[in-house]
């Protein structure tokens, strides 16, 4: 069966150049970057080249670790007895769960609601500030609906208040321009496997001078911020993947955006009882999240998979089953509509032919499922 992949927000295939660089590094530059000898130095050189800004780039195991390190590290390092964190209701669990942990440690957390468009405003963030606020954490692009938050505006609020700003950029990198200076963030999370790199490598950008408490102990790697023998091949792969992303960005953005719009327009016009979740304009060009009245999203994912099309509903839980998406519920969707929603996330290799075939398969599947009326 011909298979087409429309789940690039979950993960992406490793780019051939990245794969080659990584394998070559694993095979040849196997030294421990902390060793004094030749092998260690060779590894250290590769690592330094990947770092670009060694003082500000901390390699981690991926987006989840970057988010954990940012939240736990920055909040625990902040002085004062009473501490307060501002975040949003539609963050990834990698941000929400450490926030819940901080709450258990006595930190107050404000989770800003989002409107039906899926965004917060800088003004809403400003109003949530308290004298004891130590960190604002707002994701750059949402993983489920793709909407972009006004990070640069929020950074002005943060700077005026003297509060650190963290942004989970896992879903933004490679899809929209990311410039930590222009965004004005102090901490920014990135992941390798969302940008055609391998799993198991990520970065936390830490602006020079940002106070961070240790969250892990065992060595002095990454300037004490992330002890553990460095994943040199992963770092090399991440570095190359970001370079490629920068090269491809402008063209990918236009082409993938066009395919996404084609998919969305066709579904909305051909299938009655459908609609887009969140704002249609201000979002990543590859993502659309669509509700289909009277259709169980989970059944739809399975039906499409059996036809060779990989799409998704919400975030997958550890056993592989799904629960209604907290993001969609936060937009104000009733649970029934949240369960009737699908996420399509396109990527570098998708073609117009694939998109046309997907449109047909979605149309057929919705018809079939509505006929037998499977309800959530």
């Amino acid at each position: 069966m011909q298979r087409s992949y429309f789940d690039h927000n979950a993960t992406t295939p490793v780019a051939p150049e990245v794969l080659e660089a990584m394998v070559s590094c694993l095979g040849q530059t196997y030294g421990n970057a902390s060793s004094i000898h030749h092998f260690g130095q060779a590894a250290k050189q590769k690592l330094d080249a990947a770092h670009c800004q060694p003082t500000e780039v901390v390699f981690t195991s991926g987006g989840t670790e970057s988010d954990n390190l940012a939240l736990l590290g920055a909040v625990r390092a902040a002085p004062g007895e009473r501490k307060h964190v501002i975040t949003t209701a539609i963050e990834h669990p990698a941000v929400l769960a450490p926030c819940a942990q901080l709450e258990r440690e006595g930190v107050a957390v404000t989770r800003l609601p989002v409107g039906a468009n899926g965004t917060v405003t800088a003004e809403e963030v400003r109003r949530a500030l308290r004298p004891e606020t130590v960190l604002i954490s707002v994701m750059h692009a949402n993983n489920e609906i793709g909407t972009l938050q006004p990070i640069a505006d929020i950074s002005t609020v943060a700077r005026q208040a003297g509060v650190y700003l963290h942004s989970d950029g896992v879903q933004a990198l490679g899809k929209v321009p990311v410039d930590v200076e222009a965004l004005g963030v102090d901490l920014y999370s990135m992941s390798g496997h969302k940008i055609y790199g391998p799993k198991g490598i990520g970065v936390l950008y830490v602006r020079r001078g940002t106070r961070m408490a240790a969250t892990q102990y065992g060595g002095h790697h990454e300037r004490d911020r992330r002890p553990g023998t460095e994943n040199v091949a992963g770092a090399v792969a991440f570095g190359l993947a970001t370079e490629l992303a920068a090269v491809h960005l402008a063209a990918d953005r236009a082409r993938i955006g066009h395919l996404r719009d084609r998919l969305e327009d066709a579904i909305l016009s051909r299938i009655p009882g459908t609609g887009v979740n969140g704002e249609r304009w201000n979002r990543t060009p590859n993502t659309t999240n669509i509700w289909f009245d009277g259709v169980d999203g989970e059944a739809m994912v399975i039906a499409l998979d059996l036809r060779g099309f990989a799409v998704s509903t919400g975030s997958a839980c550890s056993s592989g089953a799904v629960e209604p998406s907290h993001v969609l519920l936060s937009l104000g969707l009733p649970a029934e509509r949240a369960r009737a929603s699908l996420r399509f996330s396109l990527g570098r290799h998708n073609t117009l032919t694939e998109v046309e075939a997907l449109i047909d398969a979605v149309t057929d599947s919705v018809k079939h499922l509505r006929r037998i009326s499977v309800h959530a």
Partner: protein
Amino acid sequence: MPEDQTIAVAMSGGVDSSVVAALLARDGLRVVGLTMQLWNQRRLPELSAEGATGRCCSLDDVYDARHVAGQIGIPYYVINFEDQFEEHVVKPFVAEYLAGRTPIPCTLCNNYVKFDKFFEMADAVGAHRIATGHYARVLYHDPTGRWQLLRGRDEGKDQTYFLFGLTQSQLARTLFPLGGFTKPEVRELARELGLGVAEKNDSQEICFVPNGDYAQFLSAYLRERGVPEQETHGNIVTTDGRTLGEHSGVHHFTVGQRRGLGIAAGEPLYVIATDPRKQLVIVGSNDDLLRERFVAHGVNWISISPPDAPVRAAVKIRNKHVAAPATLHPTADPGRTEVVFDQPQRAVTPGQGAVFYDGDLVLGGGWIE
């Protein structure tokens, strides 16, 4: 391949359903494996100290099911039925228990979730037929034009007691490939097929209640739901109204129970009935437990059409009960049947199922009033 060639197999991660999937796949049929996620084992953590594995819907079971599916090369999916399971199985179970009855959640689960909901999913994935690992048999009976349900060949494993709610249209689309095998044969098949689950322990009867401790489950569930546990402690009384002692809540007791009464009496005492309204536990001798007749409601007729005259049958009132000869008397309400045993039977328990057999044939079944 046309849609009606596809079979959806309900895979629990246990040896039985794994063998079903492997047998059908080996026969070249197009098989889709589906696991129903029914209960989140992370809930009620106070119950999960022990026995957390080998229970329904544990992550280990999903892992095992997925592993088998990968091994035999079939598409496999986990489907979340937690809401439906709680609504149709757990809540009625709790309500029945608090009302002083002893429900069997497995039958509710079979009726509402494992078959009704599973057929919907089968439809969704384009599968016309479903297969499960139940020890039971289905046959089409030409003269009557009815689908018949028969006991599994392995008497000790026969699961028809839990399947009396199946409708004709469901039976027409259902395969029980293990009906003709014994459990040891199924394990042997699993070994021959090279399935890693061949030696896995059998699951417990009530999957979401660890160690079969209903009262403990009930307390934990009500606490989680924020429902204050009702003050149901009261008196233990004899059938002639003498008070013998106190109890800590009627839901701790089930008809026929002997142990745990906390009363020293000359003759062995058994729970005859509970009265949640007056918070009474009524006890008596073994003879007081014997009953000759009862009414079953919600009766579903399977192998025969609803009778209009008395029918002879062997009636089973608990899963482990040996079916006893009886006469089934129709009542004015076709959903209600009066069962009159030839010999009085011990512990006829309201809330349990009563299943009517003619030899291996399941005539039908209902709920004891």
